[in-house]
């Protein structure tokens, strides 16, 4: 399991290096995800330890957003000042995006699922 955690960290480091060197418009960890996907595609299976390491990280994933979320305390003033446009904008946009993306995908993706 430690070996596979090392693999995950190595993919992230390589991702950060690629993003920095090529000035790519995506975050390093996302490129790291693509690199790990390539590794799995070449290997043609998920090693048990990697599955465990990934599962552990993903079960804790909600927790990992708490420190960034507490950053809200830095902007009480700005948030109160623009409470109406920000609140309405976030609420309407989040609901609309989820509904439209979900409906389109469930409609367009029907064929792909029926094949499977």
């Amino acid at each position, binding site marked *: 399991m430690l070996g596979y955690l090392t693999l995950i960290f190595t993919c992230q480091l390589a991702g950060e290096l690629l993003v920095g060197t090529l000035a790519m418009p995506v975050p390093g960890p996302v490129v790291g995800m693509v690199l790990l996907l390539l590794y*799995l595609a070449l290997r043609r299976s998920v090693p048990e330890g990697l599955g465990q390491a990934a599962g552990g990280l993903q079960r804790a994933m909600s927790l990992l957003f708490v420190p960034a979320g507490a950053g809200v305390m*830095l902007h009480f003033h700005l948030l109160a000042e623009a409470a*109406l*446009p920000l609140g309405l904008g976030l609420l309407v946009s989040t609901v609309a995006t989820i509904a*439209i993306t*979900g409906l*389109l*995908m469930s409609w367009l993706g029907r064929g792909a699922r029926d094949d499977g």
Partner: protein
Amino acid sequence: MDNLENLAETWVYLSASPLFHLTLTLVAFQGASWLFEKGGRNPLLNPVLGAVIVVVAVLVATGTDYATYFEGAQFVHFLLGPATVSLAVPLYRQWALVRRSALAITVSLLCGSLTAILTAVGVAGLAGGGGEVLASIAPKSVTAPVAMAIAEELGGVPSLTAVLVIVTGILGAMLGPMVLTFAGVRDWSARGLAMGTASHGIGTARALQVNETAGAFAGLAMGLNALATALLLPILWGLLF
């Protein structure tokens, strides 16, 4: 008496140490998760929201600034990167379905990405938001590091964008499952893609709790929407303003 003094001194020392704020983060989240499960996973009891409220309340009550808190909390925050990389595992397991749905994913994702930008800017603008507010809210559906870089490019406030990104994620995790069920979207790949497009990693984490297919498509959507928004939004901004 001596012991009490020792306790007080030790406490003053510990309350400013990384250990205290790291533990505070974990305890707040454990408590909030317990409440979420006890409450039948009621969306109003979202554990990220609950934990943030507790942490901020403790910091404000003790007069601690965010930078001091983050010295401890950064160890938790740091794991976001490896957790994102690890999403390759569910994605690989669903790869056959992803390949068969490639066209559907591309079209749904691009439409979702445009919806996220245009409705956020449109509604905030109609409600009286100024230029700085609009530039800060425009990239709100995208994972924080990318959203902050885009906001800066458009003339927004990057640290405000970071907060809006988190609030969007929490809103998506709270309301998303309800909205999708109401809209009649039952398929796990569509539910996941919607959660990841609209509310990035927090939506992905919520999707992973429910179903692996949903989690895989959410992680994929999070990555693709970061790319789509980074490429599309600056062009769109030039056309709009």
